[in-house]
């Protein structure tokens, strides 16, 4: 927990700097419209990053995420457009496929012990090839021209203002209730919890935040469905990682695989589980990314895996496994998404875009190290160093 506060601070500083800069150079950046669109782009980046987070925790990696995104989206698109399947069915099928394939990769990593870097690098190539085969290098729309369907709605759907407000209200109520209840239990059993002030401040802040989101979003077209999906995924992954045995196993496996194994942690099942969940996430992201560009083309998804890893690491997830938090990952994703959105808004030239992205990536992590110091080695030089 050491330096926890400061590390969150450093994140906030980085983010504020970025937002401030864009707002200054291009006021429209803070317009409700742009923020809504940003939230959709964020959702796509962040969901994939959350999946990557689950894979990084046990000390693995998934380089196939990007091309998997392309493939999943393509399969669904083809099923819908050429085989006239109802969108929900197509999505379900594609998802099932992705989960199976990723679980398979998990087996190769956990049971056959082939380094994940290799397996998923192989996956990257294979899936890209399949992706192009599936769409025959054509452009395959996800829906009959101009129409709409469940698939398209993933990124084009918005909640009605009323629905939005109800959702926000429900969320806040749920959070407040559960957090207060948790605190009560802790205190009852004589463990220390947040003091009263903080305990009431937190739900309050959350409520304000969500209200603000709703307000801004409703000012445009309402809360984007994509954002709701992100929220759901984030809550789910957080619960999974922090509060279920499976989550503990992820951390334990990443922290010391041998010790975990002899403590009765089903190491292999854990790793396979992580990859299976990644499959689920990859499929979901694939649908959203494809829906975002309206059709499946050969370029969908390329290099997204790197963005996902970057988001995780910016958010303090260790590439050696065993360390990381969901809020951190969300923060990291937000930084990446804001960057791209803002630069596009300013019509920055591609070269400059690359340079800026690279610098910010390095800077964010470096800043984090400096201020938060959370990755710094204890005691002797390099005790926990040499980390990628």
């Amino acid at each position: 927990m050491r330096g926890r506060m400061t590390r969150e601070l450093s994140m906030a500083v980085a983010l504020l700097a970025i937002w401030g800069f864009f707002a200054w150079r291009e006021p429209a950046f803070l317009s409700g419209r742009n923020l809504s669109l940003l939230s959709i782009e964020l959702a796509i980046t962040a969901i994939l990053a959350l999946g990557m987070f689950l894979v990084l925790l046990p000390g693995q990696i998934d380089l196939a995420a990007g091309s998997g995104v392309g493939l999943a989206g393509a399969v669904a698109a083809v099923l819908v457009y050429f085989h006239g399947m109802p969108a929900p069915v197509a999505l379900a099928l594609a998802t099932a496929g992705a989960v199976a394939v990723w679980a398979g990769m998990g087996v190769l990593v956990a049971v056959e012990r082939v380094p994940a870097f290799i397996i998923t690098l192989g996956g990257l190539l294979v899936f890209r090839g399949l992706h192009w085969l599936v769409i025959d290098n054509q452009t395959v729309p996800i829906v009959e021209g101009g129409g709409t369907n469940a698939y398209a709605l993933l990124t084009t759907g918005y909640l009605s203002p009323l629905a939005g407000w109800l959702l926000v209200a429900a969320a806040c109520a749920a959070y407040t209730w559960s957090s207060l209840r948790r605190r009560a239990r802790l205190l009852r059993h004589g463990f220390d919890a947040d003091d009263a002030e903080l305990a009431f401040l937190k739900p309050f802040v959350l409520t304000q935040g969500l209200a603000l989101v709703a307000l801004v979003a409703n000012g445009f077209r309402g809360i984007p469905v994509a954002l709701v999906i992100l929220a759901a995924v984030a809550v789910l992954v957080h619960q999974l990682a922090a509060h279920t045995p499976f989550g503990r196993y992820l951390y334990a496996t990443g922290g010391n695989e041998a010790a975990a194994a002899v403590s009765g942690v089903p190491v292999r099942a854990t790793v396979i589980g992580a990859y299976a969940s990644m499959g689920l996430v990859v499929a979901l992201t694939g649908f959203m990314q494809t829906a975002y560009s309206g059709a499946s083309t050969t370029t969908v998804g390329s290099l997204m895996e790197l963005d996902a890893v970057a988001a995780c690491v910016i958010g303090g997830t260790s590439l050696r496994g065993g360390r990381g938090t969901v809020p951190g990952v969300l923060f990291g994703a937000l930084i990446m998404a804001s960057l791209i959105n803002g630069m596009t808004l300013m019509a920055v030239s591609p070269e400059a875009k690359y340079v800026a992205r690279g610098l910010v990536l390095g800077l964010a992590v470096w800043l984090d190290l400096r201020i938060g110091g959370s990755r710094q080695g204890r005691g002797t030089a390099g005790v926990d160093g040499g980390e990628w």
Partner: protein
Amino acid sequence: QRGGGAPQAAAGDARVVIGLSLDTLEEARWRADRDIFVARANGLGAEVVVLAANGDDTTQVGDVEKLLTRGIDVLVIVPHDGKAMAKAVRMAHDAGVPVIAYDRIVRDSPLDLYVSFDNVRVGELQARYLVDHLPTPGRGRIVRIYGARSDNNAALFKAGQDRVLAPYLERGDITVVHEDWAEEWKPENAKRIVNAAITASGPRFDAVLASNDGTAGGAVQALLEEGLAGRVLVTGQDAETVALQRIAAGTQAMTIYKPLGSLARGAAELAVKLARRSVVVAPRAVDNGATAVPSVLFDVVTVTRDNLLDTVVADGFATYDDVYRGIPEAARPPRPGT
């Protein structure tokens, strides 16, 4: 299967081998090119070996090496990069193999023949159409989406467009409210760009000058979500099926149809002639920096809602059903021949 070694200058009707080195097969259009070309060449009794370089110059140089290794009588090349492939031409000539540049010219090299559509002309047609079909012809606010910054053709299209737009821009009749390069020709980037345009300067523009159908698709997607689709004029190129459907549906105004058929067939015939070392007639010449390359330039066609049937469908490039897919019978024009 043929062994390696240097190609023998095949005489008379000996079975000749044509090497076709494509920049990429990632876009639908190039598959069409390939299929028609191969079909025609085979028809003329030639064997064709096809390689695609996925838009990477290094790979393409390697491809050419491989083709020469296999032993070919003529090299037909679609250079990913006009300047870079000069090296390929030299390699081919070292191996005694004549080279035909297909669709894109190879610069600074002793090229034997250039068969193409005029890419600059494509840009001109796009801009010309846009200018003429603005709500008030010749005046208006437009968004410009260029192709991949790293792709030379993108520059050529832009050049053509600029040539037409220049006077209007000078007079201020046409103003560009937003312009950007769509990295990797990605539709999602095109969508981002249009979104950015709307965010930055509101939905008050009359047209999007997109350089190909892919980016046009991204643009239309953004406009759809904005409820502007159909009201804002969008240009394109390549006559992708999806684009034709958009034109039929009215969300895209035009695309440039390059009668691939004639180009590919023509190129195949010329290639076989060259391989057999027989006479070739090239009416025009294009300067590639080194020489005036004998050239055969095929003309391109502007496809709009009105001439869909007479162009792409008549050519058999796209079928009636594909083009009008998802459009109610009532709204469709009568099926040709009925």
